[in-house]
């Protein structure tokens, strides 16, 4: 570790000692408290210059090297600060898509707003377009200077709290499914938008259903050209599979102490079976962190291959499942008693049943593990693609 990095670590640690929110876990038992905590903490981080270390240097708070980012994330996890769930989509998905595809005017308008706390969500999935995302049916019809949008979106994380939405719509039904898609920036306060929260298996409502009924979106709010939506959406998704995992894997490493505490509480410090499971988990966490590091170095060097990000996501999602499953097992009967969840507590809250259920967010959302395995085998390993059409044997 170089002196400069050590200095940064001390800086961040000292800053966190003075600024990290205390008792937020106890407070976050309602959505209102969650929103207040998230908004307050984001504003404070932005002021301290630690909210968006992964952004390019021309934006305030950006321009940190990977090594610096890692230190910031490790310290944030170490100080047990809330993860920025509410602004996750804004600072990662929306920002990175705007950096890559936004016009100068769009960037100048939206990037500062994100820093001021504007909340974004993603409107990609639909009832008929989950893993098969190109099957999007929500229609956008051009009428003069606006698109008129009709349809339904599903699984929009934080959709019920958001101001803006990254929206994937169909502008044409001709040719390949992918070629008819267009990417819009939707104002969720626009007339005709209804957001309905979805009640999840752990009791929280982290995502929403969006109903779009003759919603008008100005043509100026389009990212990329008409028909380029698929390519723009890929850049949004690859941000999720790549950059975010550096932070998340560092968070998971920072939370290994929760398992250690459980082992001690249960008096099983000398139980070889438990030690082995914990040792294997800790090594898998280290390996996932190393893989995320390696992936980002590859991306920065311009040597990223299609499928590399999927390796990181799959490694993370499986290790997170192992982490929460070991906690649940060690938690024994105690973990079976219902405990109110902490809204926005993240994946490592110590409420093991809730954490375990929450880990599905990473094996299903953002492209399920199965989709990642398709990408890895087909794109990275050159195995043949799934046939485009199929018929059921014996069908008429």
């Amino acid at each position: 570790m170089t002196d400069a990095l050590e200095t940064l670590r001390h800086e961040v640690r000292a800053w966190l000692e003075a600024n990290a929110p205390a008792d937020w876990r106890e407070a976050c038992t309602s959505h209102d408290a969650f929103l207040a905590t998230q908004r307050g903490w984001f504003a404070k981080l932005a002021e301290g210059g630690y909210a968006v270390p992964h952004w390019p240097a021309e934006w305030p708070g950006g321009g940190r090297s990977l090594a610096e980012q890692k230190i910031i994330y490790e310290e944030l996890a170490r100080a047990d600060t809330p993860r920025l769930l509410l602004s996750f989509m804004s600072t990662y998905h929306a920002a990175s898509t705007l950096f890559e595809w936004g016009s100068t005017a769009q960037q100048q308008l939206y990037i500062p707003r994100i820093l001021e706390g504007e909340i974004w969500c993603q409107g990609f999935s639909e009832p008929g377009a989950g893993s098969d995302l190109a099957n999007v049916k929500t229609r956008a019809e051009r009428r003069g200077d606006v698109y008129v949008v009709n349809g339904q979106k599903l699984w929009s994380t934080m959709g019920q709290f958001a101001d803006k939405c990254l929206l994937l719509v169909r502008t044409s039904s001709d040719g390949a499914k992918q070629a008819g898609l267009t990417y819009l920036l939707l104002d969720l306060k626009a007339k005709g938008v209804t957001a309905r929260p979805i009640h999840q298996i752990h009791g929280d409502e982290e995502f929403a259903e969006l109903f779009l009924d003759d919603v008008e979106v100005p043509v100026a709010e389009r990212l990329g050209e008409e028909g380029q939506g698929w390519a723009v959406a890929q850049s949004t998704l690859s941000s999720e599979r790549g950059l975010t995992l550096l932070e998340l894997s560092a968070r998971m490493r920072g939370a290994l102490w929760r398992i250690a505490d459980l082992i001690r509480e249960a008096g099983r410090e000398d139980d070889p079976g438990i030690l082995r499971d914990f040792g294997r988990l800790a090594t898998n966490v280290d390996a996932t962190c190393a893989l995320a590091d390696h992936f980002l170095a590859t991306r920065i060097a311009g040597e990223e291959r299609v499928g590399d990000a999927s390796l990181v996501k799959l490694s993370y999602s499986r290790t997170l499942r192992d982490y929460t499953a070991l906690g649940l097992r060690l938690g024994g009967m105690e973990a079976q008693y219902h405990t109110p969840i902490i809204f926005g507590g993240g994946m490592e809250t110590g409420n093991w049943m809730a954490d375990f259920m929450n880990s599905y967010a990473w094996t299903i959302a953002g492209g399920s593990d199965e989709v990642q395995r398709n990408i890895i085998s087909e794109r990275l390993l050159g195995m043949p693609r799934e046939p485009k059409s199929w018929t059921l044997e014996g069908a008429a």
Partner: protein
Amino acid sequence: MSMTRAELQDSARKAFGEGGLAANAETSWGLIAEMGWLMMAVPEDQGGLGLGREATGVIHTELGRALVPGPAIAQMLVIEALSAANGLPERDELLARAIGGEVMTASLAGSGATGLLRCVPDADRASHILVVEPARVTLVPVADVDVTPRDIWDKTRRLFDVRLSGTASGLVLAEGDAAAALAERLEGQLLFALAGDSLGGADAILELTIDYLKLRHQFSRPLALFQALKHRVANMKTWLAASEALFWSRAADTSAALPELGALKAHATSVYRIIAEDAVQLHGGIGLTMEHHCHLFLKRAMLNCALGGDSDHWEEQAGRQALNASA
């Protein structure tokens, strides 16, 4: 590192690639010595290349990839021990001979035993045996020991039991605290080398398996089209990629402690075992034959799991360390 990892990898892969899998032992050994790969980690003022752990990592992965026979891992342990023996008058001369390819070998079993050394590669053609004891590290001439061949399943390696006669003394390379520190370093180096060998082998057999799945047709389509098989292969690739990333990060981390290198070894050998096991399954009947190369990887993978302390041991150590780290 004056030579980049990619350059070194490229030259090693080319050199070993010419001999094919599990090439002739003598030719391979000559090549290893000639290319200077035994002196990678030796400091420059001792006639070495001073390239450190990352460079030896490249050599070990390439040795594993081509299933190269011979005592390279053991020889590098001897060279490391000699390199540390600053007070020994014969040091430079012995070091030069070892770097040049005169076989000097050591146990790959892991934790030290007195009297009987097990899993010593190529002891029958060695001039010296390294003996690592808690308070003393010595180099014993082969004339002072009894060497018994042990036939093992993995035919790419030749292992021996070595019994020290009561009077064997040998040259003292380190004593007391220095010996304990050296012993720990050697054990870490062994674990790292076995991890590298395993990851090279795992990568090679995975690639061969994917090639086979693309080639072999059943039900009028390549096996590689079946999603059940694609997903299995994708899982293997993911585990391997994570293990490789861990390997190179620990290679660069000079402060990595023994349990961390042990955890790496457990991870890498487990990945190798899983991939080699499934490779036989995915090859079907042909994978069960001696003519096919699958079994060579499977047997070397199983041997690597057993050498240097097994996963049960190292995962437990890693668990203890992680527990203490958050005390």
